[in-house]
C-alpha cells in the first residue's frame, strides 16, 4: 500500500516559481503557502504530482478517493464565484485537472496507460493491438466460428451449436484477459520496487516496454471479447 502525502506535497522536477499574487516561492502547490491564493498549473505536471504521489502503480483506492474529495472541496469553482476572472479560470483549470487525474488514476489500466504516455513510451490515443502468438490458433478458430455463425444466420440455419461454441471461446478469452491483468499487476509491483530502490535506468526501461507490450495484447483480447459479445447479443 502506498501512502499518499499531503495534498500540497512538492514533487521533484517541478520548477520553483513565484506566486502571482504575493510573489512568494511556490513549487507546484495548489495554493500559495503565504497568501493562500490558488496557483496556475505548472507546465508538464503529471497526474501523480497533482495528488502529491510518486510515479508508482499501486494506489490505495480509498485513500485516493479521500484525497479527491478533500481537493474537490478546496478547488471547485463554487469557491470562486465571487473571485476575479483570473482566479476563476485558475480554479477551473485546477479542478478540471483534478477530475481528469482522479478519473485516470483510479482505474488500474488507465493508470498504466497514463504512466507510459507521460514517460513517452506510449503515444496518447494510439493503442497498437498486438495478436499474442500463443493465442493465434484460438483466434483463428474463433474467427472461423464467427463467420460460420453469420453465414448460418443469413441462411436461416441452426445457430444453437455455433452459439455454444462461441460462448465457450468467449469464456476462454475472458480468462485470458484476467491472466493479462494479473501479469500487468505483477509488472506494476516490479516497477514500484524499481522506483523505491532506485533500480537502474535500463531495467526500468525494460519494464516499461514490457508493460506497453502487455497493454497492446490486452487491447487485442478485449476487442475479441467485445466482438464476440456483440455477435452473440445481436
Amino acid at each position, binding site marked *: 500500500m502506498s501512502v499518499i502525502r499531503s495534498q500540497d506535497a512538492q514533487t521533484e522536477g517541478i520548477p520553483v516559481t513565484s506566486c502571482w499574487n504575493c510573489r512568494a516561492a511556490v513549487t507546484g502547490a495548489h495554493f500559495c503557502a503565504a497568501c493562500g491564493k490558488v496557483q496556475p498549473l505548472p507546465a508538464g505536471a503529471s497526474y501523480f504530482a497533482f495528488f502529491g504521489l510518486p510515479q508508482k502503480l499501486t494506489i490505495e483506492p480509498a485513500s485516493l478517493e479521500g484525497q479527491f*474529495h478533500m481537493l474537490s472541496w478546496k478547488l471547485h469553482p463554487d469557491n470562486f464565484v465571487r473571485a476575479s476572472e483570473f482566479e476563476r479560470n485558475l480554479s477551473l483549470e485546477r479542478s*478540471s485537472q483534478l477530475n481528469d487525474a482522479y478519473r485516470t488514476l483510479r482505474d488500474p489500466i488507465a493508470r498504466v496507460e497514463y504512466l507510459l504516455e507521460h514517460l513517452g513510451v506510449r503515444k496518447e490515443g494510439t493503442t497498437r493491438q498486438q495478436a499474442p502468438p500463443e493465442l493465434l490458433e484460438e483466434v483463428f478458430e474463433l474467427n472461423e466460428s464467427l463467420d460460420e455463425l453469420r453465414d448460418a444466420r443469413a441462411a436461416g440455419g441452426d445457430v444453437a451449436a455455433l452459439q455454444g461454441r462461441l460462448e465457450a471461446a468467449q469464456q476462454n478469452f475472458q480468462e485470458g484477459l484476467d491472466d493479462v491483468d494479473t501479469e500487468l499487476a505483477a509488472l506494476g509491483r516490479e516497477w514500484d520496487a524499481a522506483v523505491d530502490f532506485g533500480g537502474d535506468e535500463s531495467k526500468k526501461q525494460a519494464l516499461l516496454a514490457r508493460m506497453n507490450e502487455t497493454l497492446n495484447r490486452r487491447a487485442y483480447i478485449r476487442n475479441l471479447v467485445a466482438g464476440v459479445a456483440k455477435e452473440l447479443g445481436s
Partner: protein
Amino acid sequence: MGRVVGIDLGTTFSLIAYLDAQTGSPKCIPGPYGSTLCPSVVSVDRDGKVIVGEPARAKLLTQPERTIYSVKRLMGRGVADVQDELKIFPFRIDPGSDNVIRVRLGDKSFTAPEISAYILRELKSWAEAYFNEPVDRAVITVPAYFNDAQRQATKDAGRLAGLEVLRLVNEPTAAALAYGLHKQKRGHVAVYDFGGGTFDISLLKLISTNEGDIYQVLATNGDTHLGGDDIDNALLDLARREIREKFGVEFDHRGEAIQTLRKSLIRAKHELSSAQRTIVQYPLESKGMYVREITRAEFEELIRPIIARTMAPVKMALADAKLAPQEMDEVVLVGGSTRIPLVRKTVGDYFQRAPHCELDPDEVVALGAAVQADILETGVKTMLLLDVTPLSLGIETMGGVIAKIIPRNSTIPASAQELFTTGVENQTAIDVHVLQGERELAKDCRSLARFQLKTPPGPAGLARIEVKFLIDANGILQVAARDLRTSEQHTVEVQPSYGLSDTEIERMLEESIEYAEQDFAERQVIEARTEAETILAATDKALADPRSREISAAERKAVADSEAHLRAALAGGDYKLMRTRIDEINAATAHLAEVLMNGALQTAFEGKRLDDV
C-alpha cells in the same frame, strides 16, 4: 445587488425558491394566484402583450394559435430534431426556421429561449413582489441529460430575462440536495426524476467529510423527450381514435377543441393516481357526447410501455456506476409523473426497496436550487455538489469516425487536450468538429460546434496547435487553442451548431430593454390619461358651479385655457407633456378649489390630492 433565487424551469410548471435566512431552509414563493406552481405557458394577445402562467393557460383553450406550452421540448434543438414532436404538439414553427426554431404566436415569432425568458421574468416578478426588492441572480435547473446546446439555450433564457445565471444545476442533483438536507442520510442514492417532458436517473454517493457533505454524482442517464406529456398523448391518441370511429369526428391537432379534450384527459390521469376508475365526458356539439370510463388497470396497460422506456436509462446508469440495483441505500422520486402508482411500484420492485416520496415532487428541485444559489452567493459552503457530464464529448476524425476525448459520467469540470496539425503542404486552416454522444460515427452524434484553426502555410505536419476542450461546472463546453510553436493563444471562433450566437443574444437583449422602456411608457400614458380625465371632469363640474363666479374672469379664462391645453396633450401620446399640463391645471385651479371649500369640487380635488400622496 439584488437577491438570489433558485429556479426550476420545468416543461409543465416552473417554480422559484429562496433560502430563508431565519429558518435556514429553502422555501418556494407563491405567485398572485396563491400557488407556487407557475404553468410554463406563454400567450401573446392581439395587442402584442405577453401573458404568462395561469392566465396564459386559460388562453390555451380560447386562443391556442397565440399560446404555447411545453416549450422546453424545443430548447437547443433544430427543426429536424423535433419532427416527431410537431405531429403531436401544437407548435407553429416559422417556415424559415432551421437550426434555431422560431415559434409563431399570433403575428410575431419567438425563439425557445425568448419564450422561456418570459417564464423566468414572470417568476422573477413573483419573487420581487415577495421580497419588495430586485432579483438579479439565479441558479437554474436543467435535466441532467440535457446536452450542451440545451444547456446553453437555458443560460441564454436567463440572460434574456435579466438574470445572471450563477450556475446550471442538474434537476436530480438539486433534488438530492434538498432531500439530503431533509434526511441527513449517507450512502448511495438513486434519484428517479420523471417530469412533464423529461426523464432523468442519477446515482449519487453522499459522503460526510470533516469540511462538510459532498454529493458526488456517480452516473446519470435519461431521455430528454420522455415525460408526463407522453402519457397525456397516449390518452389523447386513444380518445381521438375512438371519437373518430364512433362519431366520425376528426380533430385538428392544433385546434381549440383538442386542448379542451386534452385538459379533461389530464384531469382523468390525475384522478387515476388515487381512484380506481374515472369517467371522461366530452361534448361533440351536434354529434352527441363522448363518454368514456377509464379504469386504473386499463390506464396502466396503456402507459406500461412509456414507463418501461425509463428503465433502460436506469440500467445503463447502474452499469456505468458499477452498482447493482440492490446496492442503492435510498431511492428518491421526483417529478409529477412519479405520483402515478404504477411508476412507484415499478421503481420499488426494481430497486427492491420502497421509494421515498415524502418531499413534494413538484417543489423539491426548486428547493435544492435555492440552497445551491445561497452557497454560491454567500460563499459559505456547507455542502458541495460534484456533478458529471451526461454525454461523451468527441471530435470528428478521418472517415466521419468519432474520437472520444471526455467520456460520459466524467466529473465536471473536465478537460481534454488535443494536438492538431496540417495534413497537406501549405494547408492554412484545420477544421475541427466537436460532437456529443455515444455512437461511433459523427453522423449519429449531436453536433455541438465547428471551428477552424488558422495556420501560416508550410510543410505538412509542421503546425502544432493544441486545443483545450473544457466542460465547465454548468456542463457547457469551452474551447481554447494555443500555438505550440509560438506559445501564443489562438483565437477560436466557435460557430454553435444549434442555438443563438452571442450577437443574436445581444440584439435580443437590446430589444427587450427597448420593449421594457416601451412597456413603461405605455403604462405611464395610461396612468396620466386616467388622472387627467378625473381632473377635467372635476374642473368642468367646478366651473358649472354657481359659486365659481366668485373668481375673476381672467382666472376663469386661465382655468379654461389650462383645460384646453390638457385636452390637447391627451390627444398625443407623450406622457411627460400630459404630466406638465396636469401640474398646470392643478396650479390654475388652486384658487378655485379654495373658493369652493365646502362644495363637491373641494372633495373632488382633495380626493385627488390624497390619491397623489
